[in-house]
């Protein structure tokens, strides 16, 4: 399953870091952060609960970039 989330992040490098962090989160098959349109496309692994997974994604992203926001 694929979902798109609106995000807020200030610098392109931070966006790359967020993408890395999101990819490493359990339940995420692949993630692409689009800095320019401020969007994050997340592909979930089968059987995972997107809402739960996204909470962890946000937590992991906050670790690498304090200033970021994901509108879940």
């Amino acid at each position: 399953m694929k979902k798109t989330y609106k995000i807020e992040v200030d610098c392109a490098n931070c966006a790359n870091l967020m993408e890395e962090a999101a990819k490493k989160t359990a339940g995420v098959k692949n993630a692409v952060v689009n800095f320019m349109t401020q969007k994050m496309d997340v592909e979930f692994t089968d059987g995972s609960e997107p809402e739960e997974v996204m909470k962890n994604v946000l937590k992991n992203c906050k670790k690498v970039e304090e200033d970021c926001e994901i509108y879940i």
Partner: protein
Amino acid sequence: MNKKQKRMLIKIVIASVMLIAFHFIPLKGIIRFIAYMIPYIIIGNDIIKKAFKGIINRKPFDESLLMAVATLGAISLAVYNEFNGQIGDYVEAVAVMLFYQIGEFFQSAAVAKSRKNIADLMNIRPDYANIEKDGKLVQVDPNEVNAGDIIIITAGEKVPLDGIIIEGNSSVNTVALTGESVPRSLNVGDEIISGSINLSGLLKVKVTKNFGESTVSKILELVENASSKKSKSEDFIAKFARVYTPIVVFSAIALAIFPPLIRIIFLNLTPMWNIWLYRALTFLVISCPCALVVSIPLTFFAGIGGASRTGVLIKGSNYLETLSKVKTIVFDKTGTLTKGIFEVNAIHHNKIDEERLIEYAALAESASSHPIALSLKKAYNKPIDISRVKDIQEISGNGIIAKIDDIEIIAGNDKIMEKFAIEPIKCHCVGTIIHIAINKEYMGHIVISDVIKPESEKAIEKIKKSGVKNIIMLTGDLKKVACEVAEKLKIDKYFAELLPNDKLNKIEEIIDGKNTVAFVGDGINDAPVLTRADVGIAMGAMGSDAAIEAADVVLMDDNPLKIASAIKISKKCLNIVKQNIWFALGVKFICLVLGAVGIANMWLAVFADVGVMIICILNAFRALIIKNNV
């Protein structure tokens, strides 16, 4: 400007004013230290916080850490100098932080600006659709309208959904979709495409697609997703930034420790810890990778945005990159280089006026709905008075005999002429030939064929000029036809009489792994070929879903000149990317060397960081400017 940017701007102004003021106020000792710490904390507190958080979260190697260590280090050095009776330089630390923040501010403003620019360009999303309910017009969300519903579009409104006009006529502006500024006039029965603007009349339109599948949604989705497909340059920079920062940090540490140690142990000199520490700190300031990390995706984004304004949709940064490297372009003939419609192309050996000849032919064929008859009627371009035509006799597959104004007309191929013992003059042209005889006397012939687009020749010339080496044409048409088109357009190579399957095989032969190959098709039954090529370019795609799906680059109208401009745009973009990479890395490398040997001070270091970034961003903005003279 958003809240964050406003707050940052205020901080920048306050810190700058304080810094300048302190320059003129004679302060001493501890008071001077405290005074300078105020602007430092105002401007730098969030950076220092971020640096600490990074260390706590074990992701320490980012720009914040570099800036925090460099500025705190510079302050410590200044304090150390104060204790030794010299005057410590606090200004440098505060200024470095200040410039860093100005750079960050500029960057976020620039990105926001380009984002807004492109959003404006793509301002084709309709807000509402009018439907009639109980005799009144009601505005509803386009999402709520189903295929088959009737919508009403008044003059000046955006067309919200794709459909077919069932009442009214008007001219519509498709500039936002195709870049073509001449309005199209539409009548009952014509297709109308969402995202265009109804200029004059009131239209009743039967919706053919739900909003999700409409042209406007497809285009918006495509452009918005485009920058998610990252190019090799972007990947390279992301990877580069990941290894680069730790390397610089460790080099800085080495620079602070090893030279002094060598001085003591091997050279018996004073270690000069403070000088080497200062050089190491300068190193850190220079090293921020921001100029690259920001400007390169920004360039691609701007390039894709600028291209979409001219009616060229590029589905991803990676395709923009591939497009710039194209060495071989393979064209499908019909629908790309030629119009794909049959038209009267020439009239030869006519003994009466061309117009009269066309008139007789059109009248003779007036009862027929064959494509040839239609093209004759189109060439005649006047209402046909059927009462002038009598005794129509169709000889199947050969032609027509009819009486027009009581004169006997025979129109048809060689065979029908021979049947009536008329000597037809053979034609050297390729296409369908209609011979005309009046009262059994030969009067000339009309050539009907697929017409080469007026822009094709110039397009091929421009494509060649842009650095594409091979131009190849594939067609299912006869060899004779292909040869003529290829000669006229100066195309190097062609393969004719191909079935759709053969085209795929040919493309596979042409793709040799060395040259980048683009395929241009009209999206009708060549989707597999579009997918197979390194870059698939579909033209005339407005309203054709299959083409939009299969292609990597979509030309909204069917003008082949756009291919040349797409290549030009991609080359310009990649040039900017290259310039930025070399400029940023070059300046940084030079400053790093100068810093290591002690020539560069922190002021130069700030330029190497912030100045380079600003220049790179401004350079990236050039990608957005696309001249419309294709």
